[in-house]
């Protein structure tokens, strides 16, 4: 429409959500002026339905549901190129972390389940073993994602090269890690931590 104007205000912005993202990320969302440098340098933009600068724009426009429902936030590689090049000191990589956490906590709909599955298994492995158990991580991922033949030929090759550790010892101080997990959970129950 020829004469349509876009009104931006604290109401259209949904300031509550923006503030949540800003508190979690420690970065301003509002400061972005859409120069697009983040998306120009983003190696993952071709895999995203919303490139990085548009994600910030959607947040500014109060359309955060579109961001959380999409797969873009899960296709960020955390390469930090956007945060490095932003002329306005918007830490987009940290904003992406915050958005993923909000989506993760809400257990909301997302188009990207494989990345979330990999993250969950990775974290579970830390809790169970203390250190990463790479072979188990890959095996359980294949089973749970239903891709039984994924990297089928790679396994034996890595095994002969000694790159797959079949047996993995738990840390003897694993109790300390379990306590970290449970203390964080407790803090969250009491509302003392995000």
């Amino acid at each position, binding site marked *: 429409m020829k004469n349509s104007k876009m009104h931006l205000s604290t109401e259209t912005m949904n300031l509550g959500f923006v503030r949540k993202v800003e508190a979690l990320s420690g970065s301003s969302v509002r400061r972005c002026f859409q120069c697009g440098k983040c998306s120009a340098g983003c190696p993952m933009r071709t895999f995203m339905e919303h490139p990085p600068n548009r994600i910030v724009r959607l947040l500014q426009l109060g359309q955060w549901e579109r961001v959380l429902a999409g797969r873009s936030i899960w296709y960020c590689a955390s*390469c930090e190129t956007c945060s490095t090049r932003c002329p306005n000191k918007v830490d987009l990589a940290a904003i992406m972390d915050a958005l993923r956490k909000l989506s993760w906590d809400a257990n909301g709909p997302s188009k990207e389940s494989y990345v979330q599955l990999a993250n969950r298994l990775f974290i579970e492995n830390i809790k169970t073993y203390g*250190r990463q158990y790479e072979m188990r991580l890959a095996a359980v991922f294949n089973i749970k994602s239903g891709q039984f033949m994924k990297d089928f030929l790679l396994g034996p090759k890595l095994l002969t090269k000694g790159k797959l550790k079949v047996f993995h010892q738990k840390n003897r101080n694993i109790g300390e890690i379990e306590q970290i997990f449970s203390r964080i959970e407790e803090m969250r129950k009491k509302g003392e931590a995000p």
Partner: protein
Amino acid sequence: MTKNLLNYSYYPGCSLHASAKEYDESTKGVFKALRIGLKEVPDWFCCGATPAHNVDELLSLSLCAKNLSLADNVEGDLAVACAACFSRLKTTQHRLTENDIKRKQVETAIAGSVSLEKPVKHLLEILAKDYGLDRLADAVKKPLTGLKVATYYGCLLTRPPDVPELDCCEAPTIMENVIAATGAEPVSWSHRLECCGANFTLSRPGVVLNLSNAILASAKRAGADCIMVACPLCHGNLDIRQKEIEEANGTRYGMPVFYMTQLLGLAVGVPTGKLGLESMIVNPLPLLREKQLL
């Protein structure tokens, strides 16, 4: 026993005990040859890497803070080999120094005070700055003359700019300087700071086939004989998945991907049997023989 010139505590990270064991082995070989002591932090934990900070910053910071306090029990600055562990540990130091609220939350999580004073250093920094390029050049027994090396930084050795404190975020030279000290020739190339696809290797390998292909192609265009990396994940993507990348893109690279400590080890006279060359998927032996480095 000769006295060490420098001493460090050492955080190898999970990969160096499994898929990147040649990085661990060659690091120990090089440091021993240069008389730099490395004492592994006992009972260290996973740093949480990308998956933890992706969805749970508090967990990520707490895991790293726990590791930093474990490292306090061992003397010497903390030497870190993996670029991702290095980045997470440094990030934790920065975030908890700047943010009192997060610091208190982490202190509750680890039930202790956080210690942020111990300098965390990537192996590159130790070699180039603490040990020094001149001393490194003096230690070379077999110059890598004629070997054209594409030095690959990837993401986390230089980004974000205030965290690693290693080198310039857009035009670093530390890797080139280190490898040039051995007599090798670093090539000038376009993709040394681009992302390889990182941990999408598990969840979305298609991403890696795409991004790492661009890196291999760029190195080839620049006339490199090999790529040098300082991160186990970059190595996994460029070396382990190279054949798959070639098949997916209908091309052929045959580009050996060395850990920097493997090349340095060759130069400073670490026995080749202790450099884990046999663990590499793209066989480096024909290249090394051609350049008369074996």
